């Protein structure tokens, strides 16, 4: 009897879990289906989770879009450069901050300074004015330097470092290792899951952000991919301002559901590719850094 109810409960649980997982995939599948469907079928709303009148024409069209690839390149550049900067800054900050205030008297001042910048901001316009007066508009640095200090990641890694046994430190000191050696030869090798986690966060963060690209990049050639997609998919409403016959002509040619879907799918690809490799680390990475007993 008990076994019987257990079986029913089990199948119920498995069903719910499987359904939730499908629900998570549904929008992505829908975008994929749209991107491989014929334009007419998509406009008529005939597409569900499987392509209708399968065609590669949308992808072929993307191939001809120079700006898609340019902004793809900008995004890659940004992820690599920004990822490296984030990584270095995070590691260098997390290590001294993981020391107790007794060992490192300035520690709490730095901590408060950092948290204050995380919690309080001067607003968009002063922020823009600062970057603009540094002559960084339209430069890749504007996308990577203002976000160079990922405070959340620093805290995560700092908490992880705190969990590393003090004895390791002391042993290293005995052998004459200074802070730099200890950090790079002892702390880093033991923190792979946390490193992977903060790297994934910084890659995803850089890849996904559109707002700074929109505000700080003055030329289309310098847009990261998400900015390009945001402008393309979501704000073709601009036609209201360009009631010019020729404009209308061109714009009616580029408004296209399946093409947008193809671009959306392509822009998800890099994340989908790196995600499985880093996924096995980040669960332990987050947990060790966030939940402390």
């Amino acid at each position, binding site marked *: 009897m008990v076994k019987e109810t257990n079986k029913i*409960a089990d199948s119920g649980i498995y069903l719910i879990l499987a359904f939730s997982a499908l629900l998570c995939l549904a929008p992505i599948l829908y975008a994929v289906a749209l991107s491989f469907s014929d334009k007419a079928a998509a406009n008529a709303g005939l597409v569900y989770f499987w392509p209708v009148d399968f065609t590669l024409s949308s992808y072929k069209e993307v191939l001809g879009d120079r700006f898609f690839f340019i902004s793809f390149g900008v995004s890659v550049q940004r992820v690599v450069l920004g990822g490296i900067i984030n990584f270095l800054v995070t590691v260098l900050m997390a290590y001294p901050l993981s020391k107790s205030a007794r060992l490192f008297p300035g520690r709490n001042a730095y901590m408060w300074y950092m948290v204050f910048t995380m*919690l309080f901001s001067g607003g968009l316009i002063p*922020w823009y004015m600062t970057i603009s007066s540094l002559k960084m508009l339209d430069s890749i640095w504007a996308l990577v330097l203002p976000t160079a200090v990922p405070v959340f990641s620093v805290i995560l890694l700092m908490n992880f470092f705190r969990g590393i046994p003090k004895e390791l430190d002391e042993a290293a000191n005995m052998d004459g290792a200074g802070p730099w050696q200890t950090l790079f030869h002892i702390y880093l090798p033991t923190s792979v899951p946390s490193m992977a986690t903060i790297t994934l966060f910084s890659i995803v963060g850089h890849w996904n952000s559109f707002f700074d690209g929109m505000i700080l990049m003055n030329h289309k050639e310098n847009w990261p991919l998400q900015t390009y997609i945001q402008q393309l998919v979501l704000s073709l409403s601009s036609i209201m301002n360009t009631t010019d016959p020729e404009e209308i002509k061109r714009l009616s040619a580029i408004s296209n559901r399946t093409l947008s879907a193809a671009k959306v799918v392509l822009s998800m690809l890099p994340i989908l590719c790196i995600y499985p490799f880093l996924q096995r680390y980040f669960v332990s990475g987050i*947990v060790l850094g966030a939940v402390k007993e």
Partner: protein
Amino acid sequence: MRNRSFILNYHLMLIPGAVLLFIFSIVPMFGVAIAFQDYIPTKGIFASEWVGWENFGYMFSLPDSKQIFVNTISIALMKIAAGLVVPFVFALLLNEARIVLFKRTIQTVVYLPHFMSWVILSGILINMLTLDGLVNQILSWFGREPVMFLSSNAWFRPILVASDVWKEFGFSTIIYLAALTSINASLYEAASIDGASRLQKLLYITVPALLPTVILLATLSLGNVLNAGFEQILNLYNPLVYETGDIIDTYVYRTGLQEMQFGLATAVGLLKSAVSFILILISYGLAYRYANYRIF
């Protein structure tokens, strides 16, 4: 002596980050002065005329300002509540699954939406929610009238909450799953010997063991009461749902960047920053006092 050189090196390690924060966070903070000025670009922050609290007065005289605070808080609270409950339940269910491969697969899939941007997700959502979109087509199988989800004040908030939960619930289970692994297995064994049913074990062992985590997360989310999700709403809303969906961040963005009411926009933003700051301090204080949890 040795110790002193260590400390010097610690400072050296922190300096690059501290300098970057100074340039890109501290310097712009002087811009909050605009909130107290009749800001004229050519004069700049130093020469524009000071008007005291005038911008704040004007803000409160606008019927919109009450609306956006109400919207922000209610959307954020709904998101916080749903964002605590759904992952909690999901983690419990996942914990009951015995087949490891199945569990792994489910985890991999449900974490995924967290890594997609709102730009992408909004693009897909808008496509799904139009009159001839996927959702309405499914509704029509059940003989339901199509609904204009994104222009309906009744539906807009539920959509915001649902899509936010959809994006984040999987990822949020991670912390619960971690707490679950720390439950002592001998508790379950003892309960089994006493003849406890599966449900009883769930209710009397698992849930109580997770409660501190739930309470801790709830406390920490107090700081997010004024963050209702800028990127999500910016990419999904339209004028018809301003009434239920316009939040502080979108309002600041519109008044500041599109309508050039710099003083008003900065004042609203400053008020938000200040209130959030206080809330976060309170929540961290509570967490430290009652859960002995220290985030930094």
